[in-house]
């Protein structure tokens, strides 16, 4: 989003597809979700490439709202395709480790959640390395800073966009299988994640991986604390409010670099 200046409202639906992919792999072939990551990632990467090529590319250079509504249309299609193909049932898988916990004295930590946490950090670090130390990564950063000059430097912008977008969906290919043991999937599940994701990305500072990770943790803490001390129903209102405040007072994001104002 930061790189391409694209707000993808269908992001949640890609998570939904990724969850379904790991669900069906488990249901039909009994592939452990932690293994199915290896299959789901390339699948989601490919899907990302195709979406970018056929739906996002044509919107680039057009007014910004076009892509918002194209992705919204896509999200409607994907949700209802899932409903049509797989019905509205709440699909869950049962694996013995789903509710396994590790205890440190009084504190108990859910193992699958701990794994998600570790993997997220690792992936974030890998993306960080990728962006800073590979040619493609540098091209992506250059493009996000100034599209025109990047093009002048001989960077193939179309390829950069394609890879960036596909990387985004591939990350969902990791998230889906990791979430599946503790979660469930149904056609409209994506929506509850997509808004939080926007909030996290903007709060963290667009295009900043470190910022997004820190912001997500902050949101998690705010959610839990406000849910505990106030009313669980109000917790979302609190972080949306915080989101607006951040946008207004520090548009570069809480953890974003100063001067990189958008």
């Amino acid at each position, binding site marked *: 989003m930061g790189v391409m200046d694209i707000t993808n409202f269908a992001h949640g639906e890609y998570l939904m597809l990724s969850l379904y992919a790991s669900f069906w792999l488990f249901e039909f072939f009994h592939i452990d979700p932690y293994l199915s990551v290896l299959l789901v990632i390339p699948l989601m990467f490919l899907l990302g490439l195709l979406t970018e090529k056929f739906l996002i590319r044509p919107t680039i250079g057009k007014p910004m709202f076009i892509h918002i509504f194209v992705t919204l249309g896509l999200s409607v299609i994907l949700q209802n395709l899932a409903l049509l193909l797989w019905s509205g049932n709440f699909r869950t898988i049962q694996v013995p480790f789903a509710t396994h916990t590790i205890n440190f004295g009084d504190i108990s930590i859910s193992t699958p959640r701990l794994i998600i946490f570790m993997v997220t950090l690792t992936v974030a670090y890998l993306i960080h390395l990728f962006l800073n130390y590979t040619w493609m990564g540098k091209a992506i950063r250059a493009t996000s800073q100034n599209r025109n000059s990047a093009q002048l430097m001989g960077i193939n912008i179309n390829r950069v966009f394609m890879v960036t977008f596909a990387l985004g969906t591939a990350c969902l290919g990791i998230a889906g299988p990791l979430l599946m043991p503790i979660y469930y999937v149904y056609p409209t599940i994506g929506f509850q994640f997509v*808004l939080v994701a926007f909030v996290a990305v903007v709060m963290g500072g667009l295009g900043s991986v470190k910022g997004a990770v820190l912001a997500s943790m902050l949101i998690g803490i705010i959610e839990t604390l406000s849910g505990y001390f106030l009313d669980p129903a109000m917790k979302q209102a609190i972080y949306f409010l915080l989101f607006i405040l951040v946008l207004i007072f520090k548009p570069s994001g809480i953890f974003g670099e100063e001067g990189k104002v958008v």
Partner: protein
Amino acid sequence: MLEKIINNKVKIIAFLIFVIAPSLLSKDDFYAGILFQTLLWAGMSGTWNLLGGYAGQFSLGHAAFFGIGAYTSSLLASGLHLTPWLGMLAGASLSAMVGVILGAICFRLRGHFFSLATLAFGQIVYIIALSWRSVTNGSEGVLIMSSPGWSEMAFNSKMAYVYLALIYMLIVVGVSFYLDRSRLGYFLVAYRENDEAARAIGVNTFLARVIVSGISAFLMAAGGTLYAQYMYYIDPDSVLSIALSVQAPLIAIVGGLGGALGPVFGSFLILPMTQMLRAWLGTSFSGLHLIIYGVILIVVLLLIPEGIFPKLTEYLKKRTEKENSKC
């Protein structure tokens, strides 16, 4: 030349009325219902367009204003037996205030950031309506139980609602026409096209946007009251959902942004289409009608990003020019 364009617009309005007229005459509640929704949405989308189209301030939180209007009049009616006509005024005024404040706070944001901030604002209002149970009745919603009559803004005949919605739409179109040829409107367009240049020549685009934000919120809330009176029942999901916030700009985009008639066109294309698709395919394959809707949407957006109405007028303009040169 200008006269020609205006002339064309008049013709188009005449044809629109021509299309509406047969339905107005039919006593059929189903078509009356569709017509009501279409006119209401033409008005609502036009209201959104005042800000989103003219100033390019792309709000994704207009459901909040709609909901404020619907809730204020309904709660006043069910709690204090206040007539919805006054409730409509109260709701619209409250909403205008909120619109001005929100505008004053958020108008320093540009592009996506304004959209996302308004999206978040819409969600906050939705959550408040859900959680503030003692006042809003939470998700159980508010039932409007009034006996039909003009003073209660409740009618047995759907046609009464259709006329109300028609008046509503005409008011919104009127305001848009006013913006088309007033300083206020020029200020907005100046902001959209080049804010720095506008400010350099001393145009206060900020104030202009705040004023129009108030007007837009006011009119949106009035639409909310109409809707509540038509439905007899509102809950947070039906008047405050993101779907509403999204549909208003969508209609305007499909029809054409930044003009008075674009949203009207968009509404007359989209609303009947979605309803017919649902009526036609809704139960044979669940979700199929929405898939088709999504596909049509994407195709239209990619092929005619500037909107159908501007495309049409452009075409007509070329056409008349050709005819003139022939003469």
